[in-house]
């Protein structure tokens, strides 16, 4: 544990920038929207609100070429090459919900029988600097999904804004070695207590929905797991879905993808991987035309089964939802996850 001056944060970012491509939160100058993207150390802004996009796109891009092949007609030979991106990257100022989301994605792509090499390369040389949320945002409910407001694990370095200084905690050997090189002043137990107090205060600042009862979401998880949800509730939710896919696209833990081959002007063929969503009809359709989840309500509940049911939680070793609330921002219906939890709870209580 170390204690640094506010200005030293920039020093850390600059040092990382020399070895890694820096990704972090910044505020768009035209309209003030906050993004998590490639940024220079000078522009990275740890005080910016929660980025509107999760950092998922750094390790799992919206659209990505994963393979190239070329067929030589005359020689009857095919050249195939996998395409990897293993540039060293640093995720700087990651909030705990997004870090938890990254861990979910890790477990999907790396933690199962099949290890996704494309993803592994993205992830292989990565440095993570987390940032404690001492103030939550309006749509946040990470306290209910055990993913915030402070990161517990998975970071190399964690920063907490104590007001006039930052507390640094290291979470890995890599992080320790890096921070030690600066020779910062050591922090005391007192400052760690101060961090704890700030987190406790932060928890009281969440919207009522998330703090009235921490069982807010878990009660619904129980219902979703046991399947005691009336069809009418799913229909009510499904009717509001216009099948845009936004909830999956902005979810820090959603991993579904689609694979397509496309010819290039240069005469190659590229295999591209794009984000996909369970709300789309074509997503669950079988090759023969049968669709086990044809009606929209059957597709729509798939997402909530994925995010809230215990069977999925076993895969992620935690609930699939990380409580960032972004799906509520982008949903053209009113069926972002917090709303769905409310609808199901309403049914429980009625």
């Amino acid at each position, binding site marked *: 544990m170390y204690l640094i001056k506010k200005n030293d944060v920039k020093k850390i970012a600059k040092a990382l920038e020399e070895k890694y491509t820096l990704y972090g939160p*910044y505020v*768009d100058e*035209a*309209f*003030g*929207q906050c*993004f998590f*993207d*490639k*940024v*220079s150390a000078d*522009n990275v802004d740890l005080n910016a609100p929660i980025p*509107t*996009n999760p950092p998922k*796109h750094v390790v799992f*891009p*919206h*659209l990505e070429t994963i393979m190239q092949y070329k067929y030589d007609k005359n020689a009857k030979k095919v050249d195939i090459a996998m395409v990897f991106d293993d540039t060293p990257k640093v995720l700087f100022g990651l909030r705990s919900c997004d870090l938890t989301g990254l861990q979910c994605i890790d477990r999907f792509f790396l933690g199962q029988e099949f290890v996704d090499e494309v993803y592994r390369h993205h992830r292989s040389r990565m440095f993570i600097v987390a940032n404690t949320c001492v103030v939550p945002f309006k749509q946040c409910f990470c306290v209910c999904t055990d993913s915030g407001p402070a990161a517990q694990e998975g970071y190399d370095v964690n920063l907490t804004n104590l007001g006039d200084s930052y507390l640094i905690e290291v979470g890995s050997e890599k992080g320790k070695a890096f921070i030690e090189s600066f020779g910062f002043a050591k922090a005391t137990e007192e400052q760690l207590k101060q961090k704890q107090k700030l987190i406790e205060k932060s928890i009281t600042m969440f919207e009522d929905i998330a703090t009235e009862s921490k069982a807010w979401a878990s009660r619904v998880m129980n219902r979703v797991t046991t399947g005691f949800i009336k069809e009418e509730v799913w229909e009510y939710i499904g*009717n*509001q879905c*216009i*099948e*845009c*896919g*936004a909830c999956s*696209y902005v979810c820090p833990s959603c991993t579904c993808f*689609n694979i*397509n081959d*496309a*010819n*290039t*002007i240069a005469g190659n063929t590229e295999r*591209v991987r*794009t984000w*996909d969503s369970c709300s*789309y*009809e*074509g997503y669950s*359709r079988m090759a023969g*035309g049968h669709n086990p989840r044809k009606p929209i309500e059957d597709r729509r509940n798939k997402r909530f089964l994925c995010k809230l049911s215990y069977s999925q939680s076993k895969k992620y070793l935690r609930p699939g939802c990380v409580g960032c609330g972004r799906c509520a*921002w*982008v*949903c*053209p*219906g*009113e069926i972002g996850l917090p709303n769905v939890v409310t609808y199901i709870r309403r049914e429980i209580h009625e």
Partner: protein
Amino acid sequence: MSYRPGVCTFCGTGCGHYLKVDGTSVQGVFPSRVHPVSKGRLCVRGWNIHELLGTQERIIKPYIKDSGQANYQDAIAKLVSALSSYKPEEIAFYASPRSSNEDNFALMKLARLVFKTNNISLQAESGHRNSLDVLYNGTGFAGMLGSLEDIRKAEVLIVAGMDITTQNPIIGSELHYASRSGSLLITIDSRMTKIAKLSKKFINIKPGTMRIVFDAIGHYIDKQQWGDTKSAHYEEYKKYLATVPFDSIEKETGVLPAEIAFVAERLVKAKSAAVFFTSGISGLSYDTVASIYNLFVLAGKIGKEGCGVNPIVGINNLQGSFDMGCAPDLLTGFQSIDDATAKKNFEKKWGHELPQFKGKTVEQLLADSSSPLKALVIVDHDDGIVKYADRLQSLPFVAYIGAFTNKVADVAHVVLPITTYIETDGTFTNAERRVQLSLKKCDNTFDVLPMWKLCDTIAQAAGKAFNYQGASEVMDEIASLTPSYESISYKLLSKKHGVQWPCTKKNHDGTKYCVPEKVSFVLPQKPYAAVQATQEYPYLLMLGKSQHYWHQNNIMHKTFIPLREYNATLLLYPDGYMAIAPEDAKKIGVRDRWPVKVVAEKASMKAMVMISDDVAPGTAYVPYFIREGIASFLLAYSDIVSQGEEATIPVRIEKV
């Protein structure tokens, strides 16, 4: 920091987005949370627009049919010499409602100033022109009277025969939000669409009776003496309302008199109300739009906040393309070509006389086999003219201008590539008249010209250079010639989510909703012609076109996810489908995906059955996009098909 703000260019909603641009390629997209219309939302098309923008299916080199790949200079020389060899009446320009305002203005200038022809029109225009004509005749205002931004301010919202969550999903979303926060959302339609399911009141009408239903509501309001009687032509309108078959309204339309009274009362009593209907690819007829408009005049719902008669266009810049004068009889800003002052302004600015002869639309010229059409310039074609494929192939000269590969380009004698909208600057005007600036986000790697520049280069080759240094100069010229765009400039639009025209020197912030100087009722032109089912032909067949516009769209085929989603229906019903109600299926003795023969008086066709709760018993629904299956059937009924979304044909359905 690779996210750059921009405008989605699929539909007429004009949502705000950020494109993730890395060098010359677009890697992703994210919605803009502060955009006044979309407020952080995008639909399936918008969320995957980078797939289109990153496609390799581009036209990258000019092409001359006789000699193969060419450079711009030779291809343009060929175009100019070919067009110059014909009389102006024999030349036509087919503009694209997807092009930016600058591109369309430059094309219109090229047609009128350089090639001296008034034969310029838009693809997929028919419906919107009807809407604009009605609104212009009634208020002097050729655009949406209300505003999308004001949807949540309306107490009553009516959706008239439009599957809005499919066609313009984010407007549908806005209506849903308004309804959830207290507005009364009413859908009047012949099918149970998604918006009907989300509405507080769904009025299921017999196909083809929209106009009667709206007039009946007007009739009721007038009878109760609740209406505004001060607007011009009220007496004629009252006389016309007397012809509404009000006493037999249930038999005619399937709507109960109590439902008519309910809508009438809520509409009149509400402080504000707005109506939304499809306009564009295949909209409503002039008379139906007039009925909808008249009802709102009568109910006193014009010129107030939250009020509006709102035609919804399915293509991003259809409104702007009309604003740019891409019609045989229009100059910019809906100024008539016969308007002496406007004409004089143009002639003074351009230094040449405008063509005198009365132009025709490209559709008119292609459909009429005796028309003098010899040479056609097509820009960025979508789907509209495939039915004229034979005529197209027999034309002595066809030129194609576009960014993406396209089957229509195969018949062209000269092909000229252009940039996509992110590779140049341009403005787009959405359904609510919002002119939005989209700045260049990356260079194109093929050295192709933006269309405004290409038009200038063609003009230069023909000896009448426009001398534009940039797209902003085109906008400056548009502003100087167009009263409703008077104050619009790139400087005004930068760092803004657009302004809604009229944007004049007195009114830099634009106009949210129109407050007309004078409001008149617009009298319908034809008597009612609702089609009735008979014993021999007991089912009323509806033709859906605008709902399915995106299914067969050329640009959809350049994407992955939207293509898959839009093709999902086609994979299940490869030869098209005919949706019927479950009880009708039982009666006929067919199951889902079984073939049937659809017999009408003049023609018949085969179709696959789709059993759906969304259509009412006694009706059937066929999507227009199934070209192969129904082309000949529709040809026999081309007069009815031309009625757009109201087209109704009585049929018999036989099991085969």
